[in-house]
């Protein structure tokens, strides 16, 4: 028991939680925004991979870190356009189109990366975002090192969650997004163009996903390698259900998930005699369990996965 307590009492654990949660927060918010407008975006895993790759590549070629994030966001937006053309304009199956986008975006990332960076013994690196000590707060005992010595994108993630919650529930734009996700025909009757709303939500949502991916290469690590997203995108899709399509709960869900992930990492080294794979499985098992618990209670946007065509029901 004292092992557990030692782990929980270390500031390092709580700092790691925020770090692990950051890409999940961006990704979950992005997926949530798409789904609020009625579009399931299973392209997320590939879009995160592309964001990680292109963000890193920009910085490697001399751009500064913030420009790297911006480039990733724009690239994510372009994949959002692709997904929108397939699912909104053509009204194809959102499941299949999303899988197609994921397969294309990830294989395209590997291709571009290998084309520009030839195979080398040690992968080339960049100087990533450095932790920012928030004045005064970072010198607080325990809380300081745990919460207030993160890199800038982590703080940005929390700000984005708050902004998105405000936009969705307190602004006319948010109302239009929610109406489109619930009933695009009614939205159109109210003078909202469901096609435009869906395009906008998918583009901005995909940009957020790509920024989540870019966090991996620009802050958490300093190099890019294939398969580095490691299923985080799919976990974001699960977290959206867990969050019942609410940005505040998405923030909480991502932090909770990151807690389990950081905890199992430390438990791995502390507990001997248990195969390490058991610990690595827990995040995935927990995601499935969370889905099972939350799926029935969650209020799904009613028009999710339904293509909208004018005059056709």
């Amino acid at each position: 028991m004292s092992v557990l307590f030692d782990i929980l009492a270390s500031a390092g654990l709580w700092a790691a939680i925020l770090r692990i949660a950051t890409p999940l927060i961006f990704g979950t918010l992005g997926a949530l925004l798409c789904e609020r407008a009625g579009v399931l975006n299973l392209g997320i895993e590939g879009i995160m991979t592309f964001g990680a790759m292109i963000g890193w590549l920009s910085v490697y070629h001399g751009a500064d870190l913030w420009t790297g994030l911006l480039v990733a966001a724009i690239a994510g937006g372009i994949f959002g356009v692709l997904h929108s053309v397939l699912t909104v304009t053509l009204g194809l199956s959102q499941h299949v189109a999303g899988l197609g986008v994921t397969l294309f975006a990830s294989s395209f990332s590997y291709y571009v990366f290998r084309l520009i960076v030839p195979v080398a013994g040690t992968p080339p690196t960049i100087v990533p975002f450095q932790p920012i000590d928030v004045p005064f707060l970072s010198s607080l005992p325990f809380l300081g090192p745990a919460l207030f010595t993160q890199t800038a994108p982590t703080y940005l993630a929390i700000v984005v969650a708050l902004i998105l919650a405000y936009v969705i529930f307190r602004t006319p734009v948010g109302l239009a997004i929610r109406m489109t996700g619930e009933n695009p025909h009614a939205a159109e009757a109210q003078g909202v163009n469901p096609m435009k709303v869906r395009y906008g939500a998918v583009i901005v949502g995909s940009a957020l996903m790509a920024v989540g991916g870019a966090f991996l290469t620009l802050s958490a690590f300093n190099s890019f390698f294939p398969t580095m997203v490691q299923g985080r995108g799919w976990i974001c899709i699960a977290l959206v259900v867990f969050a019942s399509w609410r940005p505040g709960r998405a923030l909480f869900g991502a932090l909770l998930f990151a807690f389990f992930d950081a905890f199992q990492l430390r438990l791995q080294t502390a507990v001997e005699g248990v195969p390490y794979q058991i610990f690595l499985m827990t995040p995935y098992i927990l995601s499935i369990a969370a889905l099972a618990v939350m799926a029935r209670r969650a209020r799904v946007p009613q028009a999710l996965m339904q293509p909208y065509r004018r005059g056709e029901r």
Partner: protein
Amino acid sequence: MRLERREQRPLWLMIGAPVLAIIAALALSGILIAIAGAPVFEAYRRILIGAFGSRLSATETLTRATPLMLTGLAAAVAFRARLWNIGAEGQFYLGAIAVAAFGSKLLAGLPAPILIPLLLVIGAMAGMVLILIPLWLRLRFSVDEVVTSLLMNFIAVLFVSMLIDGVLKDPLAFGWPQSQPVADHAMLPKLIARSRLHIGLAIAVVLAVIVYLIQSRTVFGMQSRAAGLNPQGAVFAGVPLGRTLVKVACLSGGLAGLAGAIEVMGVKGYVTTDLSPGFGYAGIVVAMLANLNPIGVVFAALFTAIMFVGADGMSRSLGIPTYIADVTVALSLLTMLVALFFTQYRIRR
């Protein structure tokens, strides 16, 4: 300008659309090859030579197509009933490890004519078990099976990694995490001597025909199609939706598990965590390229295998990353989606 549903689908369009889609995908990846600074037509010529140029490469392409046919069938039967089984990769590994577990010592005393079919059945059943969990979650808790079946992949690979690092570890593998090999007489007979091509290819093609017959000639085939087209309507018409989905899931997971079993018994003889270079995920593309038609899956798997095997040689000689094969296959999925759309709709001004 608006889209209008076609009243009837002309035959030339049904045949021409997939061909056009593949051409479009090849043209798009041609741009990427050109950006890499290589001659495009030469690159595609080398892909064909790499895939068919010699007896060795031709048999290698067919060997590679075998698991793709099976995982493609697995995705096709499931998707047709709108059961989104994205877990073929995990089911593949579970089928493989089940064969390694039973075929190395436990059942190795049995004679080959009994052992081989028995192991194939065991592999298929292992795949079924894995898909039944997401299906149960869908039927019991209405959880979308896309994410759950996909997360099962990660769990399955970690589970396999645990076994080949533990109880099933081969003590003769110099410390590498690798399962004990299956008994020699559990290996599938070769189709062509002095090649890796094994009888699994024939099994896969026969299964494609059987699945086609099941889908077109049986009540279950009709029910699974109805469940996909319109679940509410199907229930109204008296289709037992839950039971149909369980059968579809067993067929789908079984085929994916069988793919893993056949890959172990036909090619490698043992299991490592890189046994599959993404056969499960590629199976999804294969199924979509075939427009979920079981016979089409055979040809789509061949196309995919040609790209993967051929790109290896092309990339070595022209200095282009092998990932171009993945890009081309992914692009053809996207172009095929668009092409199939235009077989159903037309643009009206």
